[in-house]
Every structure is written in structure tokens, then in C-alpha cells.
């Protein structure tokens, strides 16, 4: 099997573009959320300044090896996810390192960061971090369930485990999107999407009022900056998957930008209007509303 080495710099270029887009998009969404609160919100470049400042902090203390590795794992999860799914369909430069079975790997990477975070937060020794991570793991696991079901439904529908093939099957018009060919799967996945975006009503994990602020309580300086980097990349990577699986992928960067923006906006759209569930309430909510939809989606196929 020959490997095209040129793919690696191209994939890194994707990561770079996505990182910048994520930084700006995060600020933009925050500005839009602030608008609902009738204020202006942060400047659009604020995330960059925060990042530079956090890298520029003079001291940073460590609580142990896993404390170091937590953010690294988290970032690996984000970048790994992005690297192995095609970002722009049909483009040689930006189809990244996608391969035939990448859907399975993507599912794994979605979870990877959280697990790494669990180790890091556990090592930090702060009770709030420990409580936060228990909540986070249980909630993410349940949110993952409908998503996995939806992904299986899609995989069954298109009879493939390659994201590229799934996107290919959806080309040729809006009506070919999974959104219309299998609405149940999309509905289940979008509910799961809400759960994984760490916005209300499912952000009890990092809720400042209830546990200040959960797993990242002890993270600071460069560690926090690493997590900020991930916070720019990981949601976009996740949305790339959603976009590819359910919304026909993207054939160009502008299309990518618009679709990701709309997906991001969706989570903010719900998040601004609702308070947060308690963790067992959100688990029950997923089990009652999202999981049956996922099962139905599989049956539909």
C-alpha cells in the first residue's frame, strides 16, 4: 500500500485553517449570544488575545504527569478527529487522511478527549474537578448513545463505513442529504449534538454556579491555553462529522463555513434560552427522547 506523504502537510493545513476558523467562530457565537442579552460581547479577536496571554503566563504548576497529559489527550482527540475525516469533499488537499473505515475511528476520537480529560482532572486533586468529570463522563456516554445509533443507521443506509463514501452518496441536490433521506437519524444525532456541545441545558459538567467550573478547575496558564486551542478545533471537527454524515458535506470552504456556522448556531440557539439540567435529568432526557429516535432510525433503514 502506497502512502501519499503529501497528504500530511495538507492535513496540517486543514488543521490550521480550522483552528483559526474555530477561534473566530467561537467569538462570533459568543457575540451573537451576547446580543440576546442585549449587549455587544467580546471583540472578535478576543480569543486570540486570551490564548496568547495564557501561553505568556510566567508560572504554571503541575500536579503530576497525568495533569500534563490531560490537555494533550484532549487536543489529540480534537486534532485526531479532524485529521481522519475529509473536511472538504472532492478536494485532494483537504480530504485529509480519511480511509475506508474512518467512521469507526471518528466515533472513538469523539470520546477520546473526554477520557484524557478525566485522567488529568482526576490527578489535579480538586474535588470539584472530580465531581465534574464524573458528571461529564456519564453525560457524554449517554449523549454518545443516540449519536452512535444515528451513525449506525447512516452506515446501514449507505452500506459503507467510509465518511467520504457517505458524503459522495449525498451529492447531487439538497434532497439527497441524510437530513431528508433519514430524518429520524438526523433528529437523534442533533439531540446528541446538543449534549456534546457543553452548552445549556447540558452543561452541568462545567457549570460555574454549581461546581466552579468542573474538570478544568485546576487548569491554568499553558495547560488552559492548550485546552482553549482544543476548544477551537474540537467542536469544528465534530461539526465536520455531522456535516458530512447528515448535511451533505461541503465541497468548498465557503460552504463549509456556512454549514459549520449554522450548526454551531444551533447549539447556541438552544443554549441561550434554557437553564441546565441536572446530570441525571439530562441522562433521562437522552434516554427518553434521543435514544428511541436513534432506534427508530435504524429500524427505518
Amino acid at each position, binding site marked *: 500500500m502506497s502512502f501519499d506523504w503529501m497528504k500530511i502537510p495538507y492535513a496540517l493545513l486543514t488543521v490550521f485553517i480550522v483552528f483559526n476558523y474555530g477561534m473566530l467562530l467561537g467569538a462570533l457565537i459568543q457575540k451573537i449570544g451576547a446580543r*440576546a442579552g*442585549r*449587549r455587544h460581547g467580546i471583540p472578535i479577536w478576543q480569543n486570540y488575545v486570551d490564548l496568547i496571554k495564557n501561553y505568556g503566563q510566567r508560572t504554571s504548576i503541575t500536579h503530576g504527569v497525568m495533569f500534563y497529559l490531560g490537555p494533550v489527550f484532549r487536543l489529540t482527540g480534537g486534532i485526531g478527529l479532524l485529521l481522519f475525516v475529509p473536511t472538504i469533499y472532492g478536494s485532494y488537499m483537504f480530504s485529509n487522511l480519511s480511509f475506508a473505515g474512518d467512521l469507526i475511528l471518528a466515533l472513538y476520537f469523539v470520546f477520546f478527549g473526554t477520557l484524557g480529560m478525566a485522567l488529568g482532572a482526576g490527578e489535579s486533586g480538586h474535588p470539584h474537578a472530580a465531581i465534574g468529570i464524573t458528571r461529564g463522563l456519564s453525560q457524554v456516554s449517554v449523549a454518545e448513545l443516540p449519536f452512535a445509533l444515528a451513525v449506525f443507521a447512516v452506515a446501514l443506509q449507505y452500506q459503507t463505513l467510509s465518511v467520504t463514501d457517505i458524503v459522495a452518496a449525498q451529492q447531487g441536490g439538497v434532497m439527497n442529504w441524510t437530513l431528508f433521506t433519514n430524518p429520524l437519524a438526523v433528529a437523534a444525532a442533533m439531540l446528541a449534538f446538543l449534549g456534546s456541545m457543553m452548552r445549556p441545558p447540558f452543561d452541568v459538567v462545567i457549570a460555574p454556579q454549581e461546581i466552579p467550573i468542573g474538570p478544568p478547575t485546576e487548569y491554568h496558564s499553558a495547560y488552559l491555553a492548550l485546552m482553549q486551542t482544543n476548544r477551537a478545533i474540537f467542536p469544528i471537527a465534530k461539526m465536520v462529522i455531522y456535516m458530512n454524515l447528515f448535511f451533505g458535506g461541503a465541497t468548498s470552504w465557503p460552504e463549509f463555513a456556512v454549514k459549520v456556522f449554522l450548526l454551531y448556531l444551533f447549539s447556541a440557539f438552544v443554549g441561550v*434560552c434554557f437553564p441546565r439540567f441536572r446530570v441525571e435529568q439530562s441522562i433521562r432526557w437522552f434516554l427518553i427522547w434521543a435514544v428511541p429516535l436513534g432506534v427508530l432510525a435504524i429500524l427505518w433503514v
Partner: protein
Amino acid sequence: MSVRDVLSPFTAWKNLFRDPVSIPDPLNRAAAPRYRGFHQNDVEKCIGCGTCETICQNGAIDMVPVEGIETKSGDSGLRPRIDYGRCCWCALCVDVCMTKSLTMSNAYTWVENDPDLFCFTPGVDKKHWDNAELGYHCPTDRRITGQVRAHMRELEPETRIDSFVEIVQGYSVEEAILEADRCVACGLPCATAITSAAWNCSTPATRFPASAAASAPTSARTPALPATKATRSPSAG
């Protein structure tokens, strides 16, 4: 739980199409006309009576000698120095000011990195708010010290005209106490109130131990303590 409960929260988004209500330039926003901001003092009008020092419950005001202002009859030569590390902007000093020279502007921003810089003598140390028009001024119809001068009884002109009885009849004990109550015990020569010796509790120092403790330069005040035209003591009245 109804459909309304799920849909109604989304009305929050109507604000997306409204202009934000933030103040565009909060740094230059003027306070209300009556705002109790930083102090101003008209040093020409001020006589340095020290009543503001007496009433300040925070001990924020010290009477200090000021260069260029002579001690003379009716003027102690002292001016209030205010420590903004103590002040609470209650404006009692403005209310109590005998000459209405002490007022407050509506300026409110003062940032320093040295805590010792917050002591200043309004009117003497030049500040950017010295000429501010707006701000808190004590209303003319309200004083928190005694207001009405007790009128001293005199003989009717008809009786005066053919007798040598003293025309001015003096105060009764109650009237004298009331009149003495108006005194702020400043120790300055004063045409309207009798001096501190007249009322049963002597000096502000014993009445207001808190502020007296904080008023360091009392020695500077002593030369300005001439006992002047003392009217008769209440017991004699």
C-alpha cells in the same frame, strides 16, 4: 409541561434584532446633577470652623493650616483636608457646613496607585472638578444644626420710654439652652451664637471622641480661641 414551555423561551432571540443597550462611552458619562461626587471648597468663603471635622463619623476630615491663608478674627486659617481613604460620601459635612462653602461636584473618577495620594485639601489642591457646576449642594432651607434664632425679649417701647429698666430682658433657661444648641463650638468669634462655655457639655472633643481622636492638628487651632463677647450664662438668665 406544555408545548408553550418548550417554545416560549425562544422568544429571547427577539433581542438579536434590537440594538444593544450598552452605553457607548461609559468612561465619559456624566453623573446626575445631584450626584454626591468629589468635594469642592470655596476657600474664600470657608472660615475653617471645623464643624465638618466634628460631624464626620469616619474621621476623614482634618483641619490643616494652609499656606497663604492668615489666621485672623473670624477665620481660623485652617481648611478641611479630606482623606478619601475614609470618606463615604454621605455629605453630612456639606449639610453641616456653616458658610455653605463646602460642596460636592459630580465628578467620580479618581484612580491612583499610591494610597497616600488620596488626601487632599479641596479648593487648595487644584483638581479638575474644582469648577464643576453640577453636584450636591445643601438645600438652602435645610440645616441639620439649629435653625431658628431664639428671639430675645425686649421691653415694649411704651414701657421703655419712661423707665430705666433694662430693655433687653435676656433668655430664659430653656431659650438659652436652645440658643446654645445652635452653637457648633468652633471657637471662632461669632456674632450669632454664644460660646462653648455656655452650654453644659463643653467641647466637641468630649462629645465626639471618635472624630477628636483623628483630628491631629488641634494645637494649630488653639490660637484662634479667643473668648469674645460672651453673653450671660444661662443660669444667670
